[in-house]
């Protein structure tokens, strides 16, 4: 029997436009998988010829979910090019904003984007609220939003919709699928947290806006520093940040952490979440200045899941391949060669388990995302990569947090290399960041006692040529921005973004990237309703708008960096 094709388009509950296709055998086990981004916008191309000071604000519009990531990257890439060092206060504010972003972004990702892959909303209706309320103490000493009265209210609220067959955003989903492993009571606890998280994320965004002006799409960074000098010098604003921070941290400690522990217990033997790591190379950038001497996370990469060795990143080894991406060019693009122009070939007619559709022809091009490679190898990036690299580096904070989680759940280190592990890693990273954000805050408060500088003046000499870059960790993994400035204007701009590393198509050698590799071997209960695929893909936290970029790079020299300047498809 030949393989049958499953098309999932749109993949919902993500940022942007993503199509996943898999081929299943007669036992509904995935044999092959294809990842396709279906939108191209061309933002780097638009950046060319602009004032370098505008790079951050424009690049930020790459993505409104990891909002700020591209803003900061754009600003710092230009600073790097111009040789500007922002004052210590500015660096701390940026670090604090980054922490505020993660505390928002990861909570929303788990509860509102990924959560419904783990939580069966309909099952929660048959829960006993009193038993659920007691059960919550198993996963947290101090549970939140799980009182019997609250759980009862949540249940009634959802029941009224289910009874009337009017499920709104919950309609026509995968409720009842056999791979949902929470008991009705566990589902009810998580559902209550889903609703609570809607409130908490609003507070997290306010916390961000205190120094960021607004969220999404903040507006308080400039090349040279930050503009929110009045906010950081105001005791009211500072204490307001701390109060909101406490609310969000409280939720992370008492709900997010507890729910992942609960998931580790319930899903610990569920096959469909115990695979999902096909590419075992992991790459991470550094992030979170805590004070003058310490960053929370360090950069590096590991190979073949080997935690005993960690390597430093060598920028010259990053290349991109467009064999299966909708761009013109040779199969394996060498840096600085060729032309990056859209070459859209679209889909072909084909049979799927749900009927006739447009499908990918995998022998040709099939995605707007390119395939980045490090030293010719595919790499996974994201919270899991960040933790693994730092674990391997001997980062004490990371080792202790990861160790405590493994001990508590009774899982071996190997359990990290799974879909479940990837989802748990995002929580652990959030926990590490929220625990350490107060250190950043304290460093800021300490420093403004004697230093109120927030901005470094600079001049752009239009007779000079500048080149610079930013590399660091953002919510979805390692991000880099590369800029070249000539005649006082942006001559060339590129972003190599996290989701590109993860979501890219096959390369010329047929090597697949993390998304495509993660799905092989996955068994689907009902291929026409492929919940298991959604769960694996969501565990990566796709951000497609980030991942798709391209620039017209013909003849551009970025030789100091030797990153493939053709770059385009990376995502946050």
């Amino acid at each position, binding site marked *: 029997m030949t393989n049958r094709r499953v098309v999932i388009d749109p993949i*919902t509950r993500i940022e942007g436009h993503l199509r996943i296709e898999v081929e299943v055998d007669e036992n509904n086990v995935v044999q092959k998988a294809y990842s396709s981004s279906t939108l191209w916008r061309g933002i780097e191309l638009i950046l060319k010829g602009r004032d370098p000071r505008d790079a951050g604000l424009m690049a930020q519009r790459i993505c409104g979910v990891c909002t700020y990531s591209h803003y900061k990257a754009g600003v710092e890439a230009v600073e790097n090019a111009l040789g500007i060092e922002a004052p210590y206060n500015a660096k701390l504010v940026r670090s604090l904003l980054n922490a505020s972003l993660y505390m928002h972004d990861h909570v929303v990702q788990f509860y509102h984007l990924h959560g419904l892959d783990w939580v069966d909303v309909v099952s929660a209706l048959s829960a006993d609220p009193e038993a659920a309320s007691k059960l919550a103490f198993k996963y947290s000493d101090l549970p939140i939003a799980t009182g019997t009265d609250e759980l009862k209210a949540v249940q009634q609220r959802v029941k009224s919709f289910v009874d009337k067959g009017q499920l709104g955003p919950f309609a026509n989903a995968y409720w009842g699928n056999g791979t949902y492993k929470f008991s009705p009571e566990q589902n009810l606890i998580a559902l209550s947290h889903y609703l609570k998280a809607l409130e908490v994320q609003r507070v997290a965004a306010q916390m961000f806006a205190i120094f960021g*002006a607004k969220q999404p799409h903040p507006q308080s960074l400039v090349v040279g520093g930050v503009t929110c000098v009045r906010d950081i010098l105001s005791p009211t604003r500072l204490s307001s940040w701390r109060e909101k921070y406490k609310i969000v941290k409280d939720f992370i400690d008492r709900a997010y952490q507890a729910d992942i522990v609960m998931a580790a217990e319930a899903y610990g033997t569920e096959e469909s979440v115990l695979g999902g790591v096909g590419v075992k190379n992991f790459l991470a950038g550094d992030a979170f200045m805590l004070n003058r001497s310490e960053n929370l996370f360090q950069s590096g990469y590991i190979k073949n899941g080997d935690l005993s060795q960690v390597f430093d990143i060598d920028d010259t080894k990053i290349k991109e391949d467009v064999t299966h991406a909708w761009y013109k060019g040779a199969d394996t693009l060498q840096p600085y060669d060729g032309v990056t122009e859209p070459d859209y070939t679209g*889909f072909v007619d084909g049979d799927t388990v749900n009927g006739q559709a447009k499908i990918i022809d995998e022998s040709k091009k099939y995605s707007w995302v390119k395939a980045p490679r490090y030293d010719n190898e595919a790499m996974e990036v994201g919270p899991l990569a960040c933790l693994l690299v730092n674990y391997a580096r001997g980062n004490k904070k990371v080792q202790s947090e990861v160790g405590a989680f493994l001990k508590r759940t009774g899982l071996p280190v190997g359990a990290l290399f799974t879909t479940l592990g990837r989802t748990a890693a995002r929580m652990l990273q959030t926990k590490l960041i929220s625990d350490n954000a107060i250190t950043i805050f304290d460093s800021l408060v300490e420093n403004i006692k004697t230093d109120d500088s927030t901005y470094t003046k600079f001049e752009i000499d239009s007779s000079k040529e500048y080149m610079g870059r930013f590399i660091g960790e953002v919510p979805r993994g390692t991000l880099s921005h590369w800029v070249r400035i000539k005649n006082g204007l942006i001559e060339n701009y590129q972003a190599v973004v996290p989701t590109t590393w993860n979501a890219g198509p096959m390369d010329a050698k047929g090597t697949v990237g993390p998304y495509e590799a993660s799905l092989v071997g996955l068994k689907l209960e009902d291929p026409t309703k492929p919940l298991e695929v959604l769960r694996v893909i969501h565990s990566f936290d796709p951000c497609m708008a980030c991942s798709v970029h391209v620039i017209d790079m013909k003849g551009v020299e970025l030789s100091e960096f030797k990153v493939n300047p053709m770059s385009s498809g990376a995502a946050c």
Partner: protein
Amino acid sequence: MNSFDALYAKAKDRVRSLSELPSVKEESVEQMLEARGIERRDFMKWAAGITAMLALPSQFTPLFAEAAKLADRVPLVWLHMAECTGCSESLIRSDAPTIDSLIFDYISLDYHETLMAAAGWQAEENLEHALKKYAGRYILLVEGGVPTAMNGQYLTLGPQGRTGLTVVTEAAKGAAAIFSIGTCSSFGGIQAAAPNPTGAKGVDKVISQPVINVPGCPPSAANIVGTLMHYLLFGTLPALDRYHRPKWAYGNRIHDLCERRGHFDAGEFVESFGDEGAKDGWCLYKQGCKGPYTFNNCSTERFNQHVNWPIGAGHGCMGCSEPDFWDTMGPLEQPIKSHLVMGLNATVDKVGAALLTATVVGIGAHAVASIFMSKKEKEENKS
């Protein structure tokens, strides 16, 4: 008698006709409020907030409360085109009402890719179902510009690989009202900035139906929800400006209601980010603030439940709710050379606080901005 009487009568009629529509949820709102522990007092407070935001007199408050209770009569379909999801993120920051109550209690969110549980074929079914079942009744909200180059193929959606252009055109046919949420769907946005590689356009440029534009990058949650609530109460298009933006939100210049306006009039400017003027909250005009050219309610509504806004955080406005602002307002941290307000850099900071002069500055700023706007309008009429 006052001039709002006609409007009031219209709203009353609207509430009556809404109440005659079949409910999507067939549920008593009183029960819902009770179940959620929302007291009538709080509900009325919320309605009063919306009334004030829409610049209507307080006698409309009870009508808003009534309309909100009938909101389940109006299903919503939210489409994503070429976008960054920032507008959806902004929507979920809403607290007036909060998004959870929006989703669960007030409205019937039948299609929204970022929030919906279903994916793939099931998602597609939900869309088809909503467009068919609620034909003529649903509100269509669009986030993102519409790529039109290469026959729209820079964006495809769904198992049949339909272009964004096709999807939005079809969804528009049965819509009772169409809102472009954000600058991208209103005017094309970042992807439409020069050289606009994908031929991205605002929704009103690709369909023939009337569209209400709610621009901003992203628009505040208040402006998104306010537009919805206005439609609920009046059922017709609000008063719109020349860019089809609701006047209640986009009727005033940022500059006119800016908290730093006094410093502009007094000639007190931030000369460099982080300087003493910056610490004292002086005017950001010389740092490229586009408040004098930008129409929006950020000065009064701010963002994230009034926590802050760009000028509050010491960065100038970048004009994000104006058409083509990426191309016309840049460099963003520099005054627009061709439209210097009062030829300002040389003189205004010297005039000090002399009252008479300051007044002239104010008038002058208005005059220059009006010339600027009418020029743009002329250009638009030509094209």
